[in-house]
């Protein structure tokens, strides 16, 4: 049995619930670090930790298809968990920003309207809402695969907006937001290839 087959077999047996549990544990642990005084500036740090977790998970969900296409390893059963976890961290990121950082509803609204990087992040968040709302099996069946797939293409603009949101926030030349952006672009480019092949054939 090849390594590939081994991974595929193991993936079939491995349940998805530990992913949700790990995400909750990580979120709770970060919150505890903020609460316990482990960070000098807990509000901004927690906001960043949740934001980076959201983007990381969003990008992770985008790796599932290329891994299947190029490596013939099927991890698709974990994709919904990765996407929902990403959404969960987006919500956590938003709540820390609104409630602990900005601390006032009128200023939250003012920032969304006035600050382009906040606007961009907010639009990305809103684009993800229909994706999270249509992840239950019952709804997927009701929608049918064509409509469902079309709706879930919103993840592409959402992840690009998330990258822009992160890039825009940086002062000076910073590596991390650029790295996230480059990886995202790479994962999106990989999706263009099979289409070209089909056209050529």
């Amino acid at each position, binding site marked *: 049995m090849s390594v590939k087959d081994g991974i595929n077999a193991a993936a079939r047996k491995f349940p998805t619930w530990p992913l949700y549990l790990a995400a909750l544990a990580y979120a709770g642990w970060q919150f505890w670090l*903020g*609460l316990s*005084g482990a960070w*000098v*500036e*807990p*509000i*901004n740090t*927690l906001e960043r930790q949740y934001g980076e977790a959201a983007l990381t998970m969003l990008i992770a969900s985008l790796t599932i298809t290329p891994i299947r296409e190029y490596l013939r390893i099927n991890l698709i059963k974990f994709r919904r968990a990765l996407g929902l976890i990403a959404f969960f961290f987006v919500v956590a990121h938003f709540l820390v920003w609104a409630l*602990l950082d900005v*601390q*006032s509803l009128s*200023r939250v609204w*003012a*920032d969304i309207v006035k*600050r*382009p*990087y906040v606007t961009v992040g907010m639009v990305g968040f809103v684009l993800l809402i229909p994706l999270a709302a249509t992840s239950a099996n019952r709804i997927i069946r009701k929608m049918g695969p064509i409509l469902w797939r079309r709706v879930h293409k919103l993840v592409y603009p959402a992840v690009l907006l998330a990258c822009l949101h992160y890039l*825009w*926030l*940086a*002062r*000076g*030349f*910073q*590596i991390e937001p650029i790295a996230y952006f480059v990886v995202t672009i790479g994962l999106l480019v990989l999706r263009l290839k099979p289409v070209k092949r089909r056209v050529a054939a």
Partner: protein
Amino acid sequence: MTRRRIDRLTQDDVTPKELWLKRRQILAGLAGLGAIAPMGARASDEPLEPNTFEEITTYNNFYEFGTGKSDPSKNAHKLQTEPWSITIDGAVEEPVTLDFAALSEIPTEERIYRFRCVEAWSMVIPWNGFELSQLLDRVTPLPSAQYVQFETAVQPDNMIGVRRKVLNFPYREGLRLDEARHPLTIMATGLYGEPMPNQNGAPIRLVVPWKYGFKSIKSIVRITFTEEEPFTTWNDLNPSEYGFYSNVNPNVDHPRWSQATERRIGGGLFNSRQDTLMFNGYEDEVADLYEGMDLTVQI
């Protein structure tokens, strides 16, 4: 002549670290319970309680050592501070170079200042230092000199941020000559009575308390008198975000975020924002430097 600020606060006025730490924990707890929520409390109403040594030395912007707030405290041990000297040159009759021994002979005093970062957080820091004018008086400027430019050391082998070209290094800042000679403007060589920690700009740095923190340039090796407004690093990178003056001004927002409020470091996860004060609370002392200027335009 500007009004001189007599600073009578001394080390004796600094609340012992353990005592106020405990106090702050209680306050943070109460705030968390919603018992007290001093939204928009004025910074000038509260006594200047310095941040802890640990807060001041582990939450820094010093891009030569990385862009994360904790990067400088992790990486700045590599900064080579011996030997050290400051060259004062440019539009002066005769340039001088002072080594650190000569700089150390200048008597220092404690100045407890508010420190407001352009990123909308703030601290209170008990600096040790001397007025910059004492250093500037070591040279005779030409009558045409109007500004001074400051330059940070560049040590690529020791500075990861310099190797990554995070900014256009060497880091440079500048002041108008009257700002530089203002008695509030100091060269700091220490904090909490300790020699300046590397991550805070060892061995000697500028502190201009009524301007955003990035004006208070660290680890200075050169001071150049100039006739024209000098090149300054952040202003060059993005003039609409970082003006040459960069006075703390709650009425002029940074294009990407509001400057109306700030978060004082040390208040925990449920810390409230407080109003930012014009000139960071030093309006009485420095406002006359900018008489006749439109500070919403000349930022």
